[in-house]
Structures are given as structure tokens and as C-alpha cells.
């Protein structure tokens, strides 16, 4: 099979920017590590109870927010050399927005104060007995919001610091909405259809909006949840973004191909410093940002339905958390020893290296299957 000159040129461009991104990231990684240590932006016990697992105790004191290496490198290179209104503005914008959310969360977890929200029972009592009518009315009107806040607590594990789950969900909803607006209103009619293998394009119309929001929110949280072992998120993201680069190249999306290879190059440098024993960890700044970017890039090349393959291990991780929560509240039992699932294997006695590498391999197999299906 002969590759056309144009496609070859796109491939060369993509590889070039991947290498440049990798070199740039390697260049300033030591500086970032030094900065993180200087400002004491490190993982500590109060907000990470998993540090009590014997095999994880050495992680206390490891810098977090290492994901800035990828976010800043990719955003800078894209703005300077790959800034194309149609295909890169919104992905980079949403990535930065999600990364900002994650960054604030990381910093509040270190320097913030514990914040408690009122319980439903307390709120209801105030509605009944508060002496001010307007306060009672306000509490009544905002009761659904209070209900949402308390229910969302079930899905969080924070000890009260950092951005609360309901705040995260709201901001991620905004990020997803921006993505949906871009896809639906800006990219054109073609993007309102979804590619289904062996069937072709199926027109979803406005229904694609909630789907996009759902996938952006889910994927961002999935990568966030998966970032719990040295090299796990980094290595898995390399596999995923490589697959996205291949698929975007095959479908002729030059700018998105270059964006994906930039991410891969930068992630290679990040993972070099992140494998055990990690010099830094991704933090929410990287996991939320890259998770959102993963979803957006897949959606932009019309491979939304392949996200379960492309982001397989991330969805398994977030799925394990959801299953654990439902098992706890519905059945009264732990389904896994601990969620996310990588902790379950850790508590079963698997070493961290074994768990991470096996997850990489499993993820790579499923991504390969996803690529194979996407080619039809």
C-alpha cells in the first residue's frame, strides 16, 4: 500500500512535533521538579490515606502537579506552532480549563482548610425553625442544590479539603458544555453524526450534546481516578494518545494528529520521571486536563464510541469506584478490598510494578482491538 505524499508529510510533521515536545519536556522537567520541592507541593498523609499501605509509604513527600510538564509544554507548543481556530483552540482551551480546576484542587489539598457542608437534616431543621423568613425561603429554594451536594459526597473521598465533588462536577460540566458547543455549533453538520463500525455514520442531532458532556466529564474523572500508581496514568495515556494520533492521521486531521503526538512526546518525558520511584506525580492538574483532552480529541475525529476501547483502563478504574460505592450502599459489602481497582491488587499482594505493567499490557491489547474495529 502506498501512502500519499500529503499523508507522509503529515506523518513526518507529527513525528517531528512529538520529538520536539519530548525534548522540550525533558529539558525543563528538572526545573519543574525543583520548583515543586521549593514550594513544598508534595503528597502528604492528611489527604491521602492510601499512604498508610506499607508499599506506598515511601510516596509521602513526592512532588505532585507533575502533570504541569505535559500541560504547559503541549499548550505552549500548540499556541505557538499549531494554533488553528477550527481544531485546536477548543481542545487546548478545555484542557487548560480542566487543568486549572485540577491545579486549584491540588493546591487546596495542601494549603486549604477543611470545609464542611451542612447535612440535609440540619438544612431541613433550619428551614423549619430559622427565625428569618427569607433565610428559610432561600434554604428551601436551594434545597435541591444541598441535596445534590450531599449525594455527590458519596462519590468523593476527600477529607474536606480541596475542591468538593459537587464543585468539580459543575466545573467539568461547564468544560463538557464548551466542548459540546464547539462540536455541535462550530464544526459543522458532519460532527452531529457518530461513526458506528460496520454501519457507518449515524445522525444523532442535538442528542450528541449530552453524550459529549457525559464523555468529557467521565473521561476526565476516569484518568484522575487511575492516577494512583507510579507510571500507571502516564504509560496508559501514552498508549491512548498514540492510538488517537494514528486514527487522526488516518482520517486526515493534521492539527489534531500533531496535537496528539505532542502529548505523546511530552508524556514520554513525564513518564520517564514518574516510573517507580517517582520523582513527581501527575496530580489533578495533569489527570483532569489530559482526561478532558483525550475525550475531546476522540470526539473531534468522530471516534466517540471508541472511547471505551481507547480509554479502557481508565474506565475500568472509574467503574471499580462506582461498583464499590453501589456495593457499599446497596449490598452493605465491599466488592473490592479497596477502590480504585489498582489498590485492590496492591492489597492482595501484587507489587506496584507488577500492577502497573499488567495494566499497561491489558490497556494496550484493548486499544489495539479498538483501533482494529475503528478501521472498519
Amino acid at each position, binding site marked *: 500500500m502506498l501512502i500519499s505524499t500529503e499523508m507522509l508529510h503529515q506523518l513526518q510533521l507529527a513525528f517531528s512535533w512529538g520529538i520536539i515536545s519530548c525534548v522540550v519536556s525533558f529539558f525543563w522537567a528538572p526545573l519543574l521538579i525543583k520548583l515543586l520541592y521549593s514550594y513544598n507541593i508534595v503528597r502528604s*498523609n492528611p489527604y491521602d*490515606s*492510601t*499512604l*498508610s*499501605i*506499607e508499599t506506598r509509604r515511601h510516596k509521602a513527600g513526592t512532588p505532585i502537579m507533575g502533570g504541569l510538564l505535559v500541560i504547559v509544554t503541549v499548550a505552549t507548543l500548540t499556541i505557538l506552532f499549531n494554533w488553528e481556530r477550527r481544531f485546536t483552540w477548543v481542545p487546548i482551551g478545555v484542557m487548560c480549563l480542566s487543568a486549572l480546576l485540577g491545579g486549584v484542587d491540588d493546591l487546596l489539598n495542601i494549603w486549604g482548610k477543611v470545609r464542611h457542608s451542612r447535612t440535609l437534616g440540619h438544612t431541613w431543621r433550619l428551614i423549619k425553625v430559622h427565625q428569618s423568613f427569607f433565610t428559610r425561603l432561600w434554604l428551601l429554594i436551594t434545597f435541591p442544590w444541598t441535596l445534590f451536594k450531599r449525594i455527590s459526597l458519596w462519590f468523593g473521598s476527600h477529607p474536606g479539603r480541596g475542591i468538593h465533588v459537587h464543585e468539580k462536577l459543575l466545573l467539568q460540566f461547564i468544560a463538557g458544555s464548551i466542548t459540546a458547543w464547539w462540536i455541535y455549533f462550530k464544526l459543522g453538520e458532519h460532527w452531529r453524526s457518530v461513526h458506528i463500525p460496520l454501519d457507518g455514520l449515524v445522525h444523532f442531532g442535538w442528542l450528541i450534546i449530552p453524550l459529549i458532556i457525559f464523555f468529557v466529564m467521565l473521561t476526565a474523572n476516569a484518568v484522575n481516578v487511575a492516577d494512583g500508581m507510579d507510571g500507571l496514568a502516564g504509560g496508559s495515556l501514552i498508549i491512548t494518545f498514540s492510538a488517537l494520533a494514528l486514527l487522526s492521521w488516518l482520517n486526515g486531521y493534521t492539527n489534531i494528529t500533531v496535537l496528539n503526538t505532542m502529548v505523546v512526546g511530552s508524556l514520554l518525558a513525564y513518564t520517564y520521571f514518574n516510573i517507580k520511584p517517582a520523582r513527581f506525580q501527575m496530580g489533578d492538574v495533569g489527570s483532569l486536563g489530559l482526561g478532558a483532552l483525550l475525550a475531546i480529541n476522540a470526539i473531534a475525529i468522530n471516534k466517540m464510541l471508541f472511547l471505551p476501547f481507547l480509554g479502557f483502563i481508565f474506565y475500568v478504574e472509574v467503574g471499580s469506584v462506582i461498583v464499590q460505592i453501589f456495593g*457499599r*450502599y*446497596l*449490598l*452493605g*459489602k*465491599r466488592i473490592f*478490598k*479497596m477502590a480504585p481497582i489498582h489498590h485492590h491488587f496492591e*492489597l492482595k499482594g501484587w507489587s506496584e510494578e507488577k500492577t502497573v505493567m499488567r495494566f499497561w499490557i491489558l490497556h494496550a491489547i484493548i486499544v489495539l482491538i479498538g483501533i482494529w474495529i475503528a478501521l472498519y
Partner: protein
Amino acid sequence: MLSAAAQQMINDYLRLPFPSKDVFCPYFINKKNKLRGALRALAGKGTPEDIVAEAQICALKEKMNIFELSSLDIRKFLVDHGLGIDCSGLVYHIIDAELQARKKTSLGRTLHFPTATNLLKKIIIALRPTENANVYTFADNKNSLPIPLSDIKNGDLIILRDTGPSHNQQHIVLIHDTEFSANSILIIRYTHSIDLPGETWQEHGARQGVIQIIDPDKPLLEQRWIEREKTGTDNKFFNYAKTARTIQVHRLHCLN
């Protein structure tokens, strides 16, 4: 004798599966904390494995390794963190193990729950049968019927109603073994979990005892009760049982 699976369940409550440790399961009843929607291990309804696993997680949250503690310290940890088993929970899991071995079915599917009066409660009970099975459930006529002392066999239950100092407690005991002694006296061996008045944190929980049926025509309380090598009025459980308004031996329909 009960099945091997039921025996193993009893043994695991009497000696929780902490490697190389000797810790018997403490008593815990959710009436005190009134936890709702909690893990069953935290509601006094967990299996021995649930309790050990939850103890490990609780210890991790406090930056400890539970397996490095001494048996006494583990016991204290369990008591302090509300990890234990109540009387009906212990009986439930042992009978469930017995049913699984005998009839390949679970107790939750077999029992009739008198509190399942509407659809929502039925769904809740279907999802969480252990937490909703109490002494009243076992004593319900649709689940068991009283039997004479002369007819006692393995798997039967001793149900104490309106017992305790204020006559407001219910208690259930499982007969796990019966045999005839050399002089033809029926010996009943039982297992239960209880926190008797005056017991310390080191004493309450799962335990076993013996009732020697000297005269089958007389009530149960007029037989010879032995628990923790104490008999007569020295036997705290016997004194507790004497406060019960009714004490009967029941046989579960599902074990017939």
C-alpha cells in the same frame, strides 16, 4: 454435627482469621450507633472475613498495620471501631453456610421477613437480607416453630424473648451439636454472641456453651447450663436467660 462449612463459620467467629492471632469476635449491635446504609461489617452483621477486611481498612486509615498488633490490641481495635457481630447476625451466617452446603440456596431467599410490608422494603430486604434478619424474623411462625426438648437436633435455635434486666432484649442461640453422654444424658452444645451485663470489652462476643438435659420433661432453665466453665448462678448467661419472659427451642423450616 453441622456441615463443614457451618463449622468453619463458627470456628472463624470464635477465632477470627487474623494470621497467627487468637481473637474471638466481639459483640456489636447497630442499635447503639444506628448506622444506615453502612457496610454490614460496621453494623454488627458481617462475616468473619468482612470483619477482618474492614479492620484492615480502618487500620490503614489510621496509619497502622492491623496484622502487626497483638491479639489483645486487635481485640481492642475491633471494639473501639464497632467491629463485631450481634446474636442474630452470627446465627444468620452459620445457618446460611449450612443451607449453602445442604441445599445450595441462601438463607436470604428462604426466610420470610415479616417487616417486608411494601415494595420498597422488599427491595431493601432482597438486597440486604442479613441486616434485616433479627430475632423476630427467626422466631416468626413462617420461619420456625417451637419443638420439645426431647426432639432437639443440630441447627435448632434457642430463642429468648423479653430478656435482660428490663425485659426488652431478644436473644438467639444456635445449637450446633447434640450428643448423648455415656449415661444417656442429652448434651446440647450451642454458639452465640452476646454482651452480658457486667462483661468487659475483653469478654463479650462469640462464645460456646453446653446445656445438659437432665430431665427432658422439665423446662430448659431447669437443666444444667455450663458456659466458660461456670455453672449454676456463677454462669452469667444462665442468669441472663432466667430473666427471659419466654425461652423456647425452635426449628427452622428451611432446615427440615
